[in-house]
C-alpha cells in the first residue's frame, strides 16, 4: 500500500504499535554487529526454535543495540502490563528459562540489567508498566543515567528491519509535516535556527550548507550521506544505520525536499555489510510504502536514494575524495575551491552530510528548533553520540548533550579505567585528533573547546588510554595509520608522513636522538600547514599533542649519547 495521506500514516502507526506492544509477550534480541559477534543470532535462533516447536504465543524480534556494548548479548523481555526488562550477557543456556519464566510473568533475576517503565521516543511515547521494582530502573544505571537519548531513542527497542515499528513510534510524521505543510525555505530556516552542526567532525552549520546547495546554480544536484566512518574506534554511524535505518532515510527525505533535490546517495564503507543489508531492506520497505520514489505524499515531489559502497580507503571520508569514489575514480582529494556545494559528484552541486547529521533532522522538524537548541550549549546545540572504547570500564555507545565534560563521560558514564587501572589520556577525533591528558578532562566536549586543547571532535570516537599505554607508541600507531591511508597525491603527506614514521620507529626502538625529536616537530608542522586535504593537515595532531602533553615519555626513549 502507498502511504499518501496522514490517515494512511496513522493506520500504519497503529499497526506498528500493535507489533511493539502486541498484548502478549515480546522478546527482542540485540542483533547489531556487536550483538551478533557475541552470539546474538544464536540466541535468536534458539528462541525462535522453541517458540515455533512449542507453538507459543510469543513475538520474537531482532532489535538494534541499546548501547551498553560491554553487556551484550542483551535481550529485552516485554510482558504486558509490566515494565520492559533488559537482560544482560545472556547465554544459550538461559534461553529455556527466559521463556518459561516469561510465560509466568517473570524474568531470570540473575540476568537483569534494568527495567524500563516508560520510554520517550521523542516522536512518540511508550508506556510499558511498572512492577519488577526489586530490579534497578533504567535511570539508576550510571551508564544510562547521564545520557540523553535523542539519536539513540529507538536503538535496541524497535525492530530495525520493520518500517512499521519505526512509524509506530512516530517515524515519518516529521517528513509528512515537512513535505505537506512546510515550504522548503522554512525547513532550511528551522534547521539553521536549531544550530545543528555537522556531526562528521568539521562542525559546519548544516542549515547553511543546505542553503548554499539550494542556491547553487544548476538543475541537477545530489544529496549524499557520508557513511564512510573510517576513524578506528568510531562506530556510532554503524550503530545508527543498523539499529534505526529509517531515521537516516527520513532525514534525507526532508533535506532533499528542502533543497529541491531528487537524487540521494549513501556512500557506505565496504566493511559494514550488516548496515548495508539493513539499509537496503529499509529502502525497499520505504519504497513499497511510497515514502521514496515518485510523488511522495501526493505532493509531486520525487526522491529516491541509492547506495554506493566504498572499498577500503579511509581517505574517502574526505568530501572531494568521496565524490571521486562515487564517480568510480580513486579517492584522491581535489583542490578546493570549487567546494562540493558548487561542483561535486559528476560536477553537480552536492550537499554532503554525515549519517548522524541527517539523523538529527527528523527530531528538529518534529519538535522544532527551539526544543532542539535548548539541548547542549550555546553554539553547540543538540546531542552527540560517542563510542566510548579502549581501556575504559563501561564500553559502549554514549549520547550526551554537547558541552558535557570529558570527565563526566569517562568517569560518570564510563566508570573510569578498566580492570582498576588509572586512566591516563583520551584520544578524540580519531587519527585527526589528539591525545588529551587527564588533567584536561574538565574540557567540555564541544567543537571549539576541543580545538583549543589541540584535538577535535571528529566523528565521535573516544579511545581511553591507561597507565600501561605508551603514548609515543600511540603517536607512531597513528602516523603509521595515516601514512598507509594517505592517497599519495601531495608531497607533504606522502613523503612527510613516511619520514615521520621512520623517525618514530627509531624513537620507539630506543634509537632516537634529540635531533630526531626536533626534525619530527618540523615535519609535523610542515605536513600540517602544507598538505592538500584534511588527512594530511590533521595527521600530525597525535604527534603534536603527545609531544606537548607527554613530553617525558619521549625524553625517556631518547638515547643519552645524543
Amino acid at each position, binding site marked *: 500500500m502507498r502511504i499518501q495521506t496522514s490517515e494512511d500514516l496513522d493506520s500504519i502507526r497503529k499497526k506498528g504499535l500493535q507489533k511493539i506492544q502486541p498484548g502478549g509477550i515480546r522478546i527482542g534480541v540485540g542483533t547489531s554487529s556487536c550483538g551478533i559477534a557475541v552470539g546474538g543470532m544464536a540466541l535468536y535462533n534458539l528462541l525462535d526454535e522453541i517458540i515455533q516447536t512449542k507453538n507459543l504465543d510469543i513475538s520474537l524480534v531482532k532489535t538494534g543495540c541499546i548501547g551498553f556494548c560491554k553487556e551484550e548479548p542483551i535481550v529485552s523481555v516485554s510482558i504486558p502490563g509490566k515494565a520492559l526488562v533488559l537482560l544482560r550477557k545472556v547465554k544459550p543456556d538461559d534461553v529455556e528459562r527466559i521463556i518459561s519464566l516469561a510465560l509466568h510473568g517473570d524474568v531470570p533475576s540473575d540476568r537483569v540489567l534494568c527495567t524500563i517503565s516508560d520510554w520517550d521516543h521523542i516522536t512518540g511515547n511508550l508506556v510499558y508498566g511498572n512492577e519488577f521494582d526489586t530490579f534497578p530502573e533504567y535511570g539508576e544505571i550510571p551508564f544510562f543515567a547521564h545520557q540523553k537519548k535523542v539519536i539513540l531513542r529507538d536503538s535496541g527497542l524497535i525492530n530495525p528491519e520493520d518500517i512499521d515499528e519505526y512509524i509506530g513510534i512516530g517515524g515519518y510524521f516529521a517528513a509528512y509535516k515537512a513535505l505537506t505543510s512546510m515550504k522548503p525555505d522554512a525547513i532550511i530556516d528551522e534547521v539553521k535556527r536549531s544550530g545543528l552542526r555537522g556531526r562528521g567532525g568539521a562542525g559546519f552549520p548544516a542549515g547553511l550548507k543546505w542553503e548554499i546547495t539550494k542556491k547553487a546554480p544548476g538543475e541537477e544536484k545530489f544529496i549524499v550521506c557520508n557513511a564512510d566512518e573510517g576513524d578506528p574506534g568510531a562506530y556510532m554511524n554503524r550503530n545508527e544505520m543498523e539499529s534505526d535505518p529509517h531515521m537516516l532515510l527520513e532525514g534525507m527525505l526532508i533535506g532533499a525536499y528542502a533543497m529541491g533535490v531528487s537524487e540521494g546517495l549513501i556512500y557506505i564503507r565496504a566493511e559494514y555489510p550488516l548496515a548495508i543489508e539493513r539499509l537496503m531492506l529499509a529502502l525497499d520497505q520505504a519504497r513499497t510504502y511510497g515514502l521514496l520514489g515518485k510523488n511522495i505524499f501526493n505532493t509531486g515531489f520525487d526522491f529516491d536514494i541509492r547506495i554506493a559502497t566504498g572499498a577500503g580507503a579511509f*581517505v574517502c571520508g574526505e568530501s572531494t575524495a568521496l565524490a571521486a569514489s562515487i564517480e568510480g575514480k*580513486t579517492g584522491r582529494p581535489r583542490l578546493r*575551491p570549487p567546494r562540493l556545494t558548487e561542483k561535486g559528484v559528476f560536477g553537480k552541486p552536492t550537499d554532503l552530510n554525515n549519517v548522524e547529521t541527517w539523523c538529527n533532522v527528523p527530531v528538529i522538524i518534529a519538535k522544532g528548533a527551539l526544543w532542539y537548541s535548548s539541548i547542549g550549549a550555546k553554539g553547540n546545540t543538540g546531542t552527540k553520540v560517542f563510542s566510548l572504547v579502549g581501556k575504559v570500564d563501561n564500553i559502549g555507545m554514549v549520547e550526551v548533550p554537547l558541552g558535557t565534560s570529558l570527565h563526566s563521560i569517562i568517569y560518570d558514564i564510563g566508570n573510569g579505567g578498566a580492570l582498576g587501572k588509572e586512566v591516563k589520556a583520551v584520544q578524540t577525533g580519531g587519527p585527526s585528533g589528539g591525545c588529551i591528558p587527564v588533567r584536561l578532562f574538565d574540557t567540555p566536549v564541544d567543537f571549539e573547546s576541543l580545538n583549543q586543547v589541540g584535538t577535535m571532535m571528529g566523528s565521535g570516537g573516544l579511545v581511553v588510554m591507561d597507565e600501561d599505554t605508551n603514548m609515543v607508541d600511540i603517536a607512531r600507531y597513528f602516523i603509521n595509520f595515516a601514512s598507509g591511508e594517505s592517497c*599519495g*597525491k601531495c*608531497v607533504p603527506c*606522502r*613523503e612527510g*608522513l613516511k619520514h615521520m614514521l621512520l623517525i618514530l620507529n627509531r624513537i620507539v626502538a630506543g634509537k632516537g636522538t634529540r635531533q630526531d625529536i626536533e626534525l619530527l616537530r618540523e615535519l609535523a608542522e*610542515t605536513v600540517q600547514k602544507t598538505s592538500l586535504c584534511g588527512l594530511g593537515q590533521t595527521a600530525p595532531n597525535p604527534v603534536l599533542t603527545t609531544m606537548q602533553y607527554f613530553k617525558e615519555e619521549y625524553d625517556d626513549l631518547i638515547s643519552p649519547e645524543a
Partner: protein
Amino acid sequence: MSLFGSVNRMVTITINKNQYLAEEGEIFLLTALRLNIDIPHLCYEKALEPYGACRLCMVDVVTCGKTTMTPACTIKVHNGLEILTDTPEIIKHRRLLFELYLAEAPKSEVIREMAAKYGVTKTRFLKKIVHDDPLFGKCILCGLCVRVCNEIMGTSAINFINRGPYTVINTPFFEHNPDCAGCAACAQVCPTKAIVFEDSDAERIMQSWSGTAVPLATCSSCKKSYAPEKLMDKVLDKLDPAIIEELRTLCPECRRKYITRMEIGRIPRS
C-alpha cells in the same frame, strides 16, 4: 585570455607590499610569474586544471589582517587581492618541502638546482634507494604525465598505481600497453625529465612504461620510419578531409619536398 573574446578588466593587487595591475580572474601563479615575481612550482600546467600536488607554490593570502597559506595555483586575481610570497614561515615550509623532494628524487638535476636556488643543498631525510627504477630516481609523482595522457591526449595508457608512500606510475599490470600511442607527451611535460623512451628503426620503446613498444609508421616515399603509427592514426582522424591523401603518409621531410614541388608547379594541385 585577453586576446580572444571578452577582455577581462584590470584590477589592483598587492604583492609583498607593492601594488600591481593584474587581469581579473587570472590564476595568481601565472600573474606573479609574468610580473617576474618568483614562486616555485612543479605540478602546474596551463593546459590542465590546477592539481595541487607539489605544494611549492604556497603563498600567504592576507584578508582582514589574517593570513592564510594557500597554493597560488588556486587563487584567482580579484580587486584588492593581497599576497605575501616570502614570509619566514613560507620559506621555512618551502625549504623543508625541498628536503623531502631531494630525498624522494635523489637523481634529479632539476630538483637539485631548484632546491639550491631556494637555499637547500642537502636533506636530513633518508634518500630513496634507486634500484631498477623505470624513472631513474627522478619522479616526483606530480601526475603531469598521467593527466596529459588521460585528459589531453585521451589515451589513458598510464595511471597511478597503489597509494600513499607506495604510489608509482606505470602501465596496467606493468605490462606493455597497446593503448599507448607513443606520442611521448608524457616525456615532454615531465618537469624532471624522468621519462625515458627510445626510437629504433621500427618502433618507439617507452622504456619507462614497462617497455611498451609502439610501431613507427614508415614514410611512403623515403621508406624511413618517422612517427608512431597509433599517433598518426589519432592525428589523421582529426585532420580536415580536404587534405590530400598523398600528404598523409609522408614524413615531415618528404612532405616539405612534396609541398615545394606543388608550389612550383611540378605536381598538379587537386
